[in-house]
Structure formats: C-alpha cells, structure tokens
C-alpha cells in the first residue's frame, strides 16, 4: 500500500477567463535524485507571479512517489478512475490543461538538457513540442540532447549515420517497453502534450547555471501561453534519430506493412493449397456435433489450450504470489517473476500433452488449417499493435514473422525448435534488454543482464497494475498463445 501527498499551486491568469491551464511539475523523488528541481520551480513561480501577461493558468505541481503521485493527481483533476487508486478530491482546478512540462534536476549547474518524449504505451507528444523546445534551446545557447546522446553534424558519414541509427534504436526500444519514461508520460493519455526535461551534469567545461535554465523555462512557458489551440498540427507518430531530424509514420509504416504482407501471402498460399477447407472458422466456436468435418475439434483444441495458458500466464503470477512467498524463500517480486517464467516454460511441454488428449492423429489438412488461422490471427494482432505502439509491433513482427512463415511439421524438428525458442517473445525481451544496455554505452555481463531481465518483467507487470500499460496483457494474453499455436504446429503428429 503506497500513500503519498502531492502539493500544487495555481497561478491564476490575471486578465483571462480560467478555461485553460499549463502545468510545470517536479517529481519529489527519494534521496538526491531530483533535489534542485523544486527550488527552481518555486523560484519560477515567484517570478511568474509578478508578470501580467499570462493568458492561461499555470499549475505548479510537486508529486510524491513520481509516477504514482502523478497518476493520482491526474485522476483527481479529471475525475476519472482508470487504475483503482484512491484519491482525495482536489480543492482547486484550473480548466483544461493544454501542455505540461516535467522537470528533473539533480545539480545546480548542468552541461546539457535531455528531452524525454516517450510516454505510456508508446504514446508520443506532438512533434511540435519537441521542435519548440529544441529551437528555443538553440536560441538560448543551451546544449540539448535526446536519449542522452548529443547530435552530430556529420550525418552523412558512416559513423554519423550509425550514431543516428543508435539514437533511433534507443527510442524504438524505449517506446516498445510501454513504460512512461518520465512523469510527462501519464499526461499524454488525457490528450495533453507533455515532455520531460532532465538536466545532465557531465564532464564538459561549459556549464549552464540555474538562472539560464529558468530563463529557458520562462521562454517555453511564454510560447505555450501564446497557443491558440492544442498542439495538433504536426506528427504524433515519429521516430527521432536526432533532435533536428525525424522519421514520420509515412516512412516507417511501409516497412512494417511489408512484414505483415509476408504473413498474408503465406496465408493465401495455404488457402490455395487447402482447396476445400471449411470456411468462416472465426464464427462458429465451441465443440458442437460436426461429423462432417472431423478437423474442427482438432484445430479448436490447440487454440483453446493456448489461450488458457495465456490466461494462466496473465493471472497466476499475481494470484499465487502469496502462496509462493510462504513456501519458497523468495521475495514477492521474485515470486511473481519466477512464476511467470515457470508458466512460460511449461507452455513448451504442451504439444506432447495435447496429443494425448486427442484421439486419433491430426491430418495433413489439420495443421494447414491451424496454421492458416494462426497466420491470420498474428497478422491482425501485429497490425493492431503497430497502430497503437509501432515499435512494439515492429519488434514483435521482426521476431515472429520469420518463424510464422516457415514453420511446418516437416522442417527438421530439433533445429526448428531451437530457432523458435530463440525467437520467442521472452527471448526477444532478453535480447532487447542487452541491446538497450549496449546502446546506452553501459554494457552488462550475462549475470547482471539476467537480473535486469527479471526486473524488466516485474516492472512490466507492475506498470500494468498501476498505470494500465498494455504491454504485459498483450504479450501474455495474445502474443504468447499465438506463439504456442505455432509451437503446436511444429510438433503436429
């Protein structure tokens, strides 16, 4: 049970109706993590109070427990209750929030400001906000970075290109995780454009002091103050290889589209091979009396069992947490994660047990129909995922499309089984963890990487419970059963 208090103050616009607001927030983290931001916030508040040109109310917010406090404040402000948290009603409100910035400063002098854009479920603020911030930083003369990397000018050389590619890969990995990477991530769900600004103090000679940061923030807020409408003119779906370049959805979606087309072509090929397969298998569900098509039950069984395993993977780790802590010497987090991994691995044993349940053998036609259903299911699932969170959809497509296209019961079993396990969603997550650490220039050993992987799983489950992140339910309830269907096809007898 987590309890906390948020503190906020509203600077009312002196001569305007109180219909719109801007938010400046500083998370009150533990220890020395964010010890300068609140000071700057209060200084800015005092300075803003003496100015008369504000047309929107400005809300200064200090939230406890970072994201949890922010979620509670936003739910209290908008009177929603998406995550089941309990909050006391807010005494004062300021109208609809147009934009928000979250400030993280750990030292009073900085060398650069890092802009963090990725929000919950991979949602990004409007590109206009990022461009606005970068342009203003350049004008003031403060160094601005993205993903912690400074952008280079030699973007047409190989090393410049690889630097930009690394920056973009970092953004892809961060977006795919579905976590909010700053307090701003929770604003995006309420259609409020928000970004986080993090001060970085590295070993550089030229340092910027707090006054300049204050002027920067004042300039940003004056720009946001002058907005006549919400920021919506620029792209909402983009990837940034550097702060001055972006890849829009029109460029990166065809790449994903081509991957999805592979699945559809393979499905078409199977349909033509089948000739006279039963149509409309997506309508009639449940075992009825069907003597004329003996294949239906043998196809339905793997589908139902895979989905039940997915449901088990989703619900059991949390439900059996109590029991696991009592019987085994592990902490609660470890119990949840290890249960999840146990169920995941137990799913690998399924085909051998399913075939004991079914009487008779599956036919040649049987696995073709099952593969057709699995391919179409995977194609629609990946398409929907890519629309909501492109990076997640793309990474899953990269690992699942090759195995989905090539797996048949006739490929060499040992090799195919090894490849399937290596490309399963769990292992993809493991590779992503290692890749992420590599790209951040803090490579980890296998041992540390494994511990990091376990903490990523627990964080995913926690994010789903706390903020409604969709990555864990998607992987457990939909992607994993799909992978299990393909595993069933591999071991079809």
């Amino acid at each position: 049970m987590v309890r906390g208090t948020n503190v906020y103050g509203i600077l009312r616009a002196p001569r305007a109706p109180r219909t719109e607001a801007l938010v400046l927030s500083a998370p009150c983290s533990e220890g020395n993590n964010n010890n300068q931001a609140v000071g700057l916030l209060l200084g800015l508040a005092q300075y803003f109070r003496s100015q008369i040109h504000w047309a929107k109310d400005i809300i200064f917010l200090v939230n406890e427990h970072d994201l949890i406090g922010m979620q509670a404040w936003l739910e209290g402000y908008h009177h929603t209750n998406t995550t089941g948290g309990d909050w006391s009603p807010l005494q004062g409100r300021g109208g609809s929030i147009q934009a928000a910035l979250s400030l993280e400063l750990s030292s009073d002098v900085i060398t650069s400001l890092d802009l963090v854009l990725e929000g919950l479920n991979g949602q990004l603020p409007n590109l206009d906000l990022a461009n606005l911030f970068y342009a203003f930083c350049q004008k003031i003369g403060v160094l601005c970075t993205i993903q912690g990397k400074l952008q280079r000018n030699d973007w047409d050389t190989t090393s410049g290109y690889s630097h930009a590619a690394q920056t973009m890969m970092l953004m892809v990995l961060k977006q795919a995780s579905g976590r909010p990477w700053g307090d701003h991530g929770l604003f995006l769900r309420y259609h409020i454009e928000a970004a986080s600004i993090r001060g970085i103090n590295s070993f550089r000679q030229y340092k910027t002091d707090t006054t300049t940061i204050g002027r920067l923030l004042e300039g940003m807020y004056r720009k946001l103050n002058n907005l006549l409408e919400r920021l919506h003119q620029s792209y909402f779906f983009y990837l940034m290889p550097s702060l001055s370049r972006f890849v829009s959805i029109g460029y990166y979606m065809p790449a994903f589209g081509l991957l999805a087309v592979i699945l559809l072509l393979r499905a078409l090929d199977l349909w033509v091979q089948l000739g006279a397969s039963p149509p409309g298998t997506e309508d009639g569900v449940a075992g009825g009396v069907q003597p004329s098509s003996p294949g239906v039950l043998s196809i339905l069984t793997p589908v139902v069992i895979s989905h039940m395993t997915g449901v088990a993977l989703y619900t059991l780790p949390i439900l059996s947490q109590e029991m696991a802590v009592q019987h085994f010497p592990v902490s609660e987090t470890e119990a949840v994660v290890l249960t999840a991994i146990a169920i995941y691995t137990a799913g690998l044993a399924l085909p051998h047990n399913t075939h004991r349940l079914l009487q008779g053998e599956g036919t040649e036609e049987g696995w073709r129909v099952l593969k057709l259903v699995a391919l179409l299911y995977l194609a629609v699932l990946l398409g929907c995922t890519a629309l909501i969170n492109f990076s997640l959809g793309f990474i899953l497509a990269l690992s699942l499309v090759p195995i989905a296209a090539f797996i048949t019961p006739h490929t060499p079993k040992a090799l195919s089984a090894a490849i399937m396990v290596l490309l399963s969603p769990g292992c993809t997550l493991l590779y992503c963890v290692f890749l992420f650490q590599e790209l951040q220039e803090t490579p980890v050993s296998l041992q540390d990487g494994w511990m990091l992987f376990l903490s990523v799983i627990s964080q995913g489950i926690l994010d789903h419970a706390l903020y409604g992140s969709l990555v864990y339910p998607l992987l457990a309830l939909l992607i994993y059963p799909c992978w299990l269907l393909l595993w069933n096809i591999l071991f079809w007898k």
Partner: protein
Amino acid sequence: MAAPLTLLLVVAVTIRAVLFRSSLAELIPERVEVVSPLNAWKRVVEGLALLDLGVSPYAGDVFHETPLIIYFFHFVIDYAEIVFMMADALTAVALYLAVKDYNKTVFRKQKYALEAERYPLDCLELIRTPKEMYYIPLKVAMFYLLNPFTILSCVAKSTCGLNNAVIALFILCTVKGSSLMSAIFLALATYQSIYPLTLFAPALLYLLQRLYIPVNWQRSSFWLFTTQYAFMYLGSLCVMVCLSFFLLSSWDFLSSVYGFILSVPDLTPNIGLFWYFFAEMFEHFRLFFICVFQINVFFYTIPLSIKLKEHPVFLIFMQIAIISIFKSYPTVGDIALYMAFLPAWNHLYRFLRNIFLVSVVLLACSALFPVLWHLWIYAGSANSNFYYAITLLFNVAQILLVSDYFYAYLRREHHLTHGLYLKRKDGSEATLVLK
C-alpha cells in the same frame, strides 16, 4: 435433433450469463459498434424514467424506440438480462425450425425435378443429399447463437436482439405457410424499424409459391392473394400504430421513431455509411442526399424480386443483408442475423470466388474498429477519416460477400439447367461470366 439444440442453447446462455456478470458488461454497452441511438439500453432506461415521471418519453430527443417496447420493458425491467437471452434463444429456435422446413421444401422440389428429368446428366454432383442437409438447421442456430456479434449485442442489451427475434419469427411463419401470422410479424418488424417493409415482396412470393399460385399479372388469383396479404399486413400495422397512440395518448412517437430513422439527425459514428457524409454536408443539399441514401435500401427490392422470383428464401437473405448494410443506424446485431443464414448455402461453396478475401477483411476490420476508435477519441492521434475508412472497408467487404453468394446461387441454377461442363458451339470449354 432436440438434444444437440438444447446443448447449444445451454452453452449459449452460459456464455452470455458469464459475460453479464463480468467487468465487460459495463464496457460493451458503451461501444458505438454494438449500440446505436436507436437501440441503446441506456436510452430505454432513460425513456422509462421519463415515463415514470409522467412526461412523454419522447421529450428531449433521447428515446427513439417504439411505445410497445417501452411498455414491454415497463413490466419486465427487472428481468432485462433474461429477456434478451430468451430473445436470442427464440431467434435461434425460430431460425432452426424455419431452415428445417425450408430444407424439406427444397428436397421435395428437387425430387420432383429429378423425376421429371429436368436436370442435365453431368450436374448430378450438384444435387443436394439429405445427409448433407441434415445438420444445416443446427449449424444455422449455432452460427447465430455463438457469433461474437450476437453475444456482444446481447450483453449490451441492445433492442436489436428483440428486432431480430421478430424478424426470425416472421421468417418461420412465412416458411410454414401461415399468411396471417406472417403478416402480423412483418407488421411488427416494420413497426419497429421501417426497413423490413422490403421483406413484403419475398414473403408474398414465397406464400404464392407455396399455394401454387403463379406470379402472373393477368391472373386474378394472384391479385386476390396479394390484396389479402397486403390487407392483413396494413391492417396489423394500423392496429399497432393506433395502439401506440392510445398507450401514450399522443402522436409524438411518429416523428421520434420514424422521423428519426428517416431523417438521420443524430450523427454519432457507427458502422454505417451515413454519419460521415452528413457530418460534412451543407444544409442546402441535406434533403437530397437523405432521399438518395434512404432510397438505396428500398431500391434493390424490385430488381432482385424479378430475378429471384423462384427463390424467395434466398431473396429474404439478400434483402436482410441489404437492410443491414444500408440502413441508417446499423449495428453488429443486424449483421449477425444475415450471417446466421450462411450455413444454409453451404452447397454454394464451390462457386464462391472471394470468400478468403472477404473473411480476412471482415476479421481485420472487426479488430481495427476499437483500435482506431481509441486512436481517434482517446489518444487524439487519428481523426474521423481513419474510422470511416474502416467502416467503408467493412461495408465493402459485406457487399462483396452478399454479391458473391448471389453469383454462386445464380451460377448453380444456371448449371442445373444447362449442365455443369459448358461447351461452346465448336465444342471447346466455355467459362461463365456474370454480366
């Protein structure tokens, strides 16, 4: 066949009961694909509340269902969930019995045609056998009860389920040959929403066929029966309208129900084609386009009746499909009704050309509807164009499905009269093209 049907009903009722008690029961009635301003449960409750306060339920432009529905729910409001589950069960049983009777008729006609040697020798593989037709009624009931669209519509407590029940009972009475009951149920269906008016023609054709009255303009027996049926139908309709007047003591319901359906004032997005057009249209042209869109529903009746006058049950299927696609406020419950008929046309499978594409598009669109709604309304990253694109694609896929079945049906009839392997005049193999 009673035991499998009972098992099916038990399974269907269990699924619906489980969903009614789960957390999805609050989410589903909010979805615009499942409920429309005409048949949302929220609006029925609102109308009942207004009625209890003594105000006309049609005041305030919230409630758009007919007075008979509001009085029906006035008495059974506490058992609403059971009412909707029973409506679904009733629809399934009615469709089961109707298709069973229809299969008997088909088989009898086929037997007479075989004895009269009207089929060419090489199309014997197109003849339907009792073994193949034995499980079709059960499959029809299964396709209706276990269709995710029907389950969603039932859990949302949309009155579309009641409309489907009335239409299914109408089909049952028509197939059994009782013209009075058929007229009464058709009048009730028309009274609920105007579009089943177009089902008058196929019902008339079926009853004429059953009584061996040829469809000939000069024959007096034809006109006699038509007048009888029309009189019964219009009489029942008048009785229902007048009864509604006496229930509520005002004619408000005419403009609130029928005026609402015909003039489409509410432009909430749904899976139909009207909302986007009328959202961006200038007022000056609105009447013209309303007329064009509404005529589109009624327009296909006469040509289809002429082409399919020997096959009225297929005409009923096509007409229900056209109503579900082109009506002003369609929901997935309407689609579920015509999809229930698809197992009855299983024998057409070999002539269907686009079934793979249509199934994939329908599946993908059903999955994309909630995703694009979320991106438009909640994330703000998309806009109405994306949602309407999926709506258009969904409706195009449905139209393709219906026209594909139409092609397959006509092609089979052609083969039955001209032989399966067609030869041109010089003996080479010919292909069939639908002009």
